[in-house]
Each structure stands twice: as C-alpha cells, then as structure tokens.
C-alpha cells in the first residue's frame, strides 16, 4: 500500500472510532447538534428582531455568519480530542501498531469534518424553518457548502496545533477560545465592519473568517445592499481570497501540527 493510501486508510478507521465516541458522549453530541440549532434560533429571533433594517431581511444576512461561527467553534474538538487521546495513553497503543505516523491526525481531522457536515445539515434545516433561503443556483450553493467545509478542515489543523502544544485537555478549550473568539467576532459575521474603529476594521477586513463569510453569502445569494462588504481586496474577491486562505492554512499548519504531534508523543 502506498504511504498516502495507508495514512488515509488508517485515518478512516480511526475517524470511525472518533465518530462512534462522539455519538456516545452526550456533551459532544450537544455541541455538534444542539448548539447549531440554538445558535440559529437565538440569532434569528433575538438579534434578527433587535436589529431592524427596513426593507431587507437581516436574518438572511445573519445566518451565514452563524454557519461560519459554528464550524469555527467545532474545530475546538480537534485539539481537545487529540490532547485527551494522548493523555489517556490510547495514542501510544495506536503508535505501537504498524499504522501510518500521520493517521492519528488525519483520522481526527476527518472525523471533525464529518461532525461539521452534521452540524451544517442541522443548521440548514433549522435555517429553512425560520425563513432563511438560498437565493442562488444549486451549483453556487454547492460551492458555498464546499467552501465552508474546506475552511473548517483547514481550521482543524490550526486547533490541532493548539491541542498538541497545550496538552492538558482541560486547558485546551480555554486556549482555543482565545484564538477563535477574536477570529469569529472581529469579522463581518454579524455586523458590517465598516463601523469598527480603524485598527479593528483592518483586522476584520483581512480576517479569513470575513472572506469566507462574504464568499458564502455571495454563493448563497444572501448579500445585502444595506451591509456592503467593504472595500478591502479579500472582501471584494471573497471566493478567491477564501481559497487562498485555506491553501495557506493547510500548507502552514499541516506540517506544523505533524511536528507538534511528534514532539507531544515522543516522551
């Protein structure tokens, strides 16, 4: 078997194990299924009703922000899952078997991708129930979902680095939130960054989350003339910018996570 085939084959076996675990832990199920439903409903009804924009639907604008926020938050599981498996010694057992050295990371990121598919399906159904619609062609919509999932996958590798660096599973979640909170909120997820103070506005404009959010809004036909995307290049060319961001994230963080993993287990 080729090295890549082996890594993916073993990765899929391990991903299946991770998903089985997720289905058996109420807390994890809660974060992948219930949280997306709650976020969708809360944002649609609480903020959607508080922020009145005459003539246009804020809910439509908002929901893509909720989608992106959810996949970003889901990536925390990558880091905490890895940290927990290493701490419990189960990774040592896997490593004593003739598996690919990459398979633990690949398995973890694949299972988190599957987890994101589940979350997105749940959010789409909930969104449709509260009046959100895709106003574009099926092809564009498909690219939108693909972009969301690719972005989520690339993020998993960043949070894997966090989990493998911090290592104590209890601390991983907090450390992760220090990264993903600004990522989610200094962005165009819920409001237009036009009104931000200068420094924050520049950060928001170049934040990958903003590019992805704007790209998915365009691909779903959920843009809104009352919320202009902004003048910065990534927001004017969001689809291209998003793909570039995803490539950069994967190129940087896949090797980084792999070397962190080697360090974390070799003790």
């Amino acid at each position, binding site marked *: *078997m080729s090295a890549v085939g082996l890594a993916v*084959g*073993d990765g899929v*076996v*391990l991903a299946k*194990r991770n998903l*089985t*675990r997720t289905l*058996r*832990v109420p807390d994890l199920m809660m974060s992948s299924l219930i949280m997306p439903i709650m976020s969708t409903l809360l944002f649609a009804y609480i903020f959607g009703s508080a922020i009145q924009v005459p003539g246009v639907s804020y809910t439509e604008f908002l929901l893509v922000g909720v989608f992106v926020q959810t996949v970003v938050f889901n990536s925390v599981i990558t880091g905490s899952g890895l940290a927990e498996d290493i701490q*419990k*010694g*189960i990774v*040592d*057992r*896997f*490593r*004593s*078997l*003739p*598996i690919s050295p990459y398979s633990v990371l690949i398995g973890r990121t694949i299972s988190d991708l599957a987890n994101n598919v589940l979350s997105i399906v749940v959010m789409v159904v909930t969104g449709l129930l509260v009046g959100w619609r895709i106003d574009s062609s099926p092809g564009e919509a498909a690219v939108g979902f693909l972009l969301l999932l690719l972005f989520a996958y690339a993020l998993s590798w960043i949070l894997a680095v966090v989990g493998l660096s911090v290592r104590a599973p209890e601390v991983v979640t907090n450390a992760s939130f220090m990264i993903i909170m600004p990522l989610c909120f200094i962005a165009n997820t819920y409001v237009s960054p036009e009104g931000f103070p200068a420094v924050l506005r520049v950060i928001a404009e170049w934040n990958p989350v903003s590019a992805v959010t704007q790209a998915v809004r365009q691909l779903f036909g959920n843009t809104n003339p009352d919320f202009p995307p902004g003048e910065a290049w990534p927001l004017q060319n969001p689809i291209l910018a998003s793909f570039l961001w995803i490539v950069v994230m994967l190129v940087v963080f896949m090797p980084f996570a792999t070397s962190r993993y080697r360090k974390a*287990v*070799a*003790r």
Partner: protein
Amino acid sequence: MMTAAIVAREVVKKYASVTALDGFDLEVAEGTVMGLLGPNGAGKTTAVRVFATLIQPDSGHVEVAGIDVVANPRAVREVIGLSGQYAAVDELLTGYENLELIGRLYHLGKKGAKARAEELLEQFDLTEAAGRRLKEYSGGMRRRLDLAGALVRRPKVLILDEPTTGLDIRSREATWDAIGELVASGSTLLLTTQYLEEADRLAHRIAVIDHGRLIANGTADELKDQVGGHRLEVTLSDAADLDHARAVLAPIGHGEPVASQEDRRVVVPIAAAGGVLVDGVRRLDMAGVEVVDASVRRPTLDDVFLALTGHRADKAGQNGEGVKAGETKNEESVR
C-alpha cells in the same frame, strides 16, 4: 543455539531533569519470559517504550526480533504486542469494538479483524461482556481486554508493562493465569513489574534495573544464591533493641544485619543454616534482648533486591526505608 528476541546495548535516554536509562543492557532469549524488576522510577517504563518504538534512545543499540528499533520501527511494530501500564483501551467502545479496531489497524481486513476479535474474547473469557462498553468493565476485565489487544497479531515478542499494577488480589490472580497460558504457548515475553512475587511466579529469568542500569540478571534461584545462602530473621518485642540486636548478631552473619523499624525485625545473611538459629537466639538472650520470633529461611527476591540496591522493591518496603524511600519517591514525582 537460541537467538535473542530482545537485545539492548548501552542504551541511554535522558529527559530534562532525569537520566531514565543510563547505559542499560538486556538480552531476552527467544521463547522465554523475562521479568524486568525494579522500583518506581528505575527506568522500566522507559525501557519498554524504547523496545516498543514509542521513543527513540539518545544512544545505544536496540533490536527486537532481530530488527533495529531506530532504523526500522514499522517492521518492529509488525511483530510486537504491547500492553501498557494504564490499560490503553477506549472506554467508550465495547470490548468487541476495541479489539476489532486494533485488528483493523493491523490491516487484518474487516473479516479478519472480526474473526480475531471474537476468538480473543472467547480466549479471555469476555464473550459475555463483548457488547458492553469498557467503562462498565471491572479493573481486571479491562486488563484482560488490554492483554487481548496485545495479542491480536499473534506477536513474536509480547511486552507487558506492569500488567497487574493497581489490581486487587483476585484480579491479579486472574491476570497471572491469563499470562501463564500465553507463556505456556511459547511466546517471548518481557514483563516489567515492581512485584517480586510476580517476577518469581511468571518469569524464567529476572533482570533487575535500578537508576536506569541493569544491576543483576539471572534465574530467581541464581539471584537468590548470588546474595548468599540463607537468612536469619528475628523479630523483637521492642523496637528500641534493634540496634543492640544488630550489633549482637553481626559476628555470626557473613554480611551486615539489616534492621527494619516497622516490623521490629533484624535480617542477617548467613552462610549455612546449621546451628545458626540456636546460636543467634542464645546470643540475644544473653544480651537481654527479648525475641518474639526467629527463623532461618532461603532469601526471597525482596532480600535480593535489598542486597543489590540498598532499598526494598515493593511500596511497603520503600515506606519503611527512611531516606532511601524518600529518594525513590522523589524520582517517582519527577516522572
């Protein structure tokens, strides 16, 4: 001629604050059971992790089943089975799922993994519990499943790191029985333990490790002979007499008498059994030391350990050892 299943030469492994292996040597003959005996922090687990390719030594040479662990770790993993100190099984999966997972990761294929899992569950008397999640298993059942996991690929070399640490007596007996059956089937087994009884019962040969070095190696009988023929053991009624008793008994021993505060006991290594018991008790009586119990016995592995390292091997012993026990404890907390 018998070939060696494990060879370690001059192995060194240092961590930031500790030298875990400090020129460690070991040779395990094929088809035999080697007990690697040592206190907490002696370097047993580090040695196991090197043999199992989980960590690389800083220097030295290690071969398992004739394969260099540094040059070709993948090939080593194909032929070893490892069961760790902390049962490394997934508690959210069922017993069957755990074994099937390991089979899949050994690339036995779907059918192969399923068949092997069922076979092992049967062998380890876990068929009834196969469908239950591991968190509902008792400590002994988990340990048995962990052991079964190490056997999925019918390994040439089986490595068990403290297989019974933390188990109650009954589960320990059951685990010993399971290991005993494996041994009878002719596998090469390296077993680390801090229990002398365990090494005595399961191992053909015993290697004693302390401070990252091999300090003795032989059969249990050889090791016992090495430290001297017999032991005179007297228990006093008053612990205050211990020092006095040691001085009184010193002339009849061929080694330094050792006193233990906790059980008010003095142990004297003696050359031959004949007459020494009576002689010893008479001397104590004349010195005015009251004796509760006195006997002559063959040395236990505990005596061997004490003679070789200056401290006792088991935890209870460490606690009674004053300064030495303190040193060992510190090492433990560093790990």
